[in-house]
C-alpha cells in the first residue's frame, strides 16, 4: 500500500512543528498507523509528546500506532556510514576524515536532503505504515532537494573523482605516473589547496562512495513519492505582515517544480467575528493599560481577512486554525490532539 505523505511547509515560527505533531496524533487516534518526522530540535515538541526523541523512530507512549523521530544530521550520517561500511576500521577512518566531518556539519543545514532520505528509510523499515507527517525546515530550503536532485549523486560522477579514486587505490602520491590530463588538474588543485587536502579528499571520495550510493537511491525514491498521488503539501502560515508574501513565494517556488499545495493553513487565527465586534466597542470603556489590545485586534482581524483572500485559489483548501487558549503553556497530548483535529478535513 502506498504511504500517504503529509508535508508541512512554511516560514519559520508559524507553528509548523506543533501542527505537525497535532495532526499526526489526531490521525493515529483515528486508528491509522502514523509516523511523525520532526526536524525542529525544540524541546517543546518532545515535552508535549512526553519523551526525548531519538533520530531513529520510537513509539510514542500512550498513543498506539504513532512513532516519532527527530532528524539529527550527525546521527543519520553515522548510521548510514555504518550501514555502508564493510567493517569497523573503514567506518572509523570515514568518521575521522576531515571532509566527512565537515560534510556532517554542513548537512546540519541541509535538512531537506536528510529528511527526504529519512522518509524513504522510514518507509523501508515500516511496511505497515499508512501515514507519514513530515515537519520541514523553514522556507524554501525544505524543497531544495527537489530543485537540485543531482546534488548528492553527481558528486561521484566525472573524471576528477575517477582520478582521485585512482590516486588512492594505486597508493601513488602526486606526480610520477599520473596521466597527463590528471596531472594538470590535480597539480593545479594542489597548488590551490595543498597535497594533504587533496589526499584527504581522495580518501573521502573512496570511503564515502557506498554511503552516497545508498543515499542517492533513497533520495530518488523520496522524490518519486513526493510527486506521487499519495502526497499532500500543506503551506502553513501565521497571521503576520509578511505572511501573504511568503505564502505566495513558496507557492511560486513549488510551481517551478510543477507542484502545488493542496492547502494553505492559517494558524493561530482569531475569531472571524473579531473585526466587526471590535468596531462596535466603546473604546472609552477599555482600561488605558490594555488599549493597545484593541488596536492590535483591529489590525490583526484585517490582516487575517486579507490573508484568507490572498491564499484562496482554485483546487486549494484554505483552512483557518483558531489559536487556542492554554495550548502554549501546557502543550500536552490532549491539547495537541485538539489542535490536530482541526486538520482532519485535509486527510485523504
Amino acid at each position, binding site marked *: 500500500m502506498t504511504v500517504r505523505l503529509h508535508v508541512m511547509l512554511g516560514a519559520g515560527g508559524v507553528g509548523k512543528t506543533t501542527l505537525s505533531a497535532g495532526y499526526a496524533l489526531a490521525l493515529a487516534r483515528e486508528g491509522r498507523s502514523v509516523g511523525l518526522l520532526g526536524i525542529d530540535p525544540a524541546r517543546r515538541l518532545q515535552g508535549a509528546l512526553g519523551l526525548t526523541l531519538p533520530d531513529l523512530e520510537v513509539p510514542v507512549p500512550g498513543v498506539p500506532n504513532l512513532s516519532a523521530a527527530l532528524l539529527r544530521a550527525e546521527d543519520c550520517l553515522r548510521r548510514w556510514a555504518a550501514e555502508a561500511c564493510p567493517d569497523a576500521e573503514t567506518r572509523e577512518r570515514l568518521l575521522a576524515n576531515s571532509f566527512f566531518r565537515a560534510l556532517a556539519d554542513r548537512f546540519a543545514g541541509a535538512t531537506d536532503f536528510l529528511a527526504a532520505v529519512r522518509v524513504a528509510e522510514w518507509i523501508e523499515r515500516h511496511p505497515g505504515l499508512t501515514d507519514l507527517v513530515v515537519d520541514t525546515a523553514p522556507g524554501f530550503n525544505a524543497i531544495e532537494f527537489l530543485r537540485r536532485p543531482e546534488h548528492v549523486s553527481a558528486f561521484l560522477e566525472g573524471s576528477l573523482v575517477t582520478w582521485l579514486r585512482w590516486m588512492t587505490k594505486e597508493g601513488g602520491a602526486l606526480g610520477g605516473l599520473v596521466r597527463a590530463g590528471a596531472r594538470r588538474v590535480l597539480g593545479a588543485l594542489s597548488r590551490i589547496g595543498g597535497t594533504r587536502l587533496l589526499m584527504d579528499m581522495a580518501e573521502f571520495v573512496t570511503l564515502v562512495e557506498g554511503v552516497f550510493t545508498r543515499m542517492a537511491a533513497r533520495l530518488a525514491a523520496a522524490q518519486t513519492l513526493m510527486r506521487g498521488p499519495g502526497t499532500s503539501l500543506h503551506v502553513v502560515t501565521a497571521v503576520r*505582515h509578511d505572511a501573504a508574501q511568503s505564502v505566495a513565494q513558496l507557492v511560486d517556488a513549488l510551481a517551478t517544480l510543477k507542484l502545488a499545495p493542496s492547502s494553505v493553513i492559517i494558524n493561530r487565527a482569531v475569531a472571524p467575528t473579531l473585526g466587526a465586534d471590535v468596531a462596535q466597542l466603546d473604546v472609552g470603556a477599555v482600561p488605558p493599560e*490594555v488599549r493597545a489590545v484593541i488596536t492590535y485586534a483591529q489590525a490583526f482581524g*484585517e490582516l487575517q481577512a486579507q490573508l484568507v483572500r490572498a491564499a484562496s485559489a482554485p483546487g486549494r483548501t484554505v483552512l483557518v486554525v483558531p489559536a487556542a487558549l492554554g495550548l502554549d503553556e501546557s502543550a500536552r497530548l490532549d491539547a495537541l490532539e485538539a489542535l490536530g483535529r482541526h486538520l482532519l478535513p485535509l486527510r485523504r
Partner: protein
Amino acid sequence: MTATDTARQVPRVLFVVGKGGVGRSTVATALALDFAARGERVLLVEWTVTEVISPWFGKPAVAPGFTPVPLAPRLFVMNYELRAVLKSYFVEHLGLDVFYRRVIEGAAVQRLIEAAPGLAELLFIGQLWWLTTLAENEAGLRFDRIVVDAPATGHAVSLLDLPAAMETFGASGLLALEVGRIGQMMKDPKWTGAVVVSLPEALVAEETGELVPRVAKDLGRPPLAVFVNRSARGLVRPDADTAWLAALSPPPRPGTRDSLELLQRELSARVAHEAALRTAMAGQTRDGVVSLPEQLALIGARPPLEVVQALAPAVRAWLSGAEAP
C-alpha cells in the same frame, strides 16, 4: 575611512544573524538605509534562492549572481551565488583565467566544488573582503559598508566559524593563504561584527540565548547587540488582568472575547519574554539589547518598506550611542 558620524564603532562588514522569520531582512535593510542616509555607499548582501528586499523598493528580485544592483540613493543589493563569485575570484582576483576556463569550468569540478564543504562560505567571505578592498581598483566598485543578511542560524554560524573550520582541512597553497587572510579579517573588530535579531517569543528567545555565545566564540568577541523585533515594551502592562473583558458593553461574542484575551496575553507575554531575554543577555553583547517597537498600526495593509522605515528611530538611536527613544 567612512563618512559616518556614529558614536558607536561599527565594523565595515556587519553580519545580521538570526533564525528565519525574525525579521532579519527587515533589520538589515533598516541598518543599510541608515548608513546610506549618512552618506555612505552601502551594499546589502543576501544569499538566498529568492531575493526578497528589492520588491519592497518596487524593483524586481535580484537574480543570484555577482552584480550590485541600485535600490535607493547610495544603497545597492547583491544576491550571492557561488558560481558567479568563483569565476570572479579566479579570473579577476587570482588572475587565473586560463586555469578557470580549462579546469574550474568543467562539469566534474563544478560538482565537486558544490559538494566541497566550506568552499561556498569561504568564497562568500573572501568576496566580502575583496569588495571592501581591491574591488575599487580591480572592478571600479566602492563600498564604505556591507550589511550581510546572513542565512538562517546554522549557516550563519558556520560562516563566522569558517577560519577554524577550514584549518581542519590542513590546506596549504593559495587556499591556505586565503584562509589565513580571511581569518585575520574575521578577528579584526574594525572589519567584522555581528548583530543578532530576535523576537520576544519563548522559542526564538531560547535560541538567541544559545546563538549569542556561539557567535561570540566563533568571532572571538561578543556580538555588537541583540535586536528584539516586534517589541511590545510600553504597549501593555504585563501584569494587567483580563477582567475588563467581562465589563464590556455590549458583551462581545464568545469567539471575540477569547480572541481579545489571546491577543492581550500574547502582547503581555512578549513583554515578559523580552524582559527575560534582557536578563539572559546581560554582559553578553557589546551594546546590550535594542528594542525595535512593534508598529501596531502597520500590521496589515502597508508595504514592508514602511515597516522598515518605522525602525529607523531605534536603529539610529543605537548607532549614535543614544538611549532608545
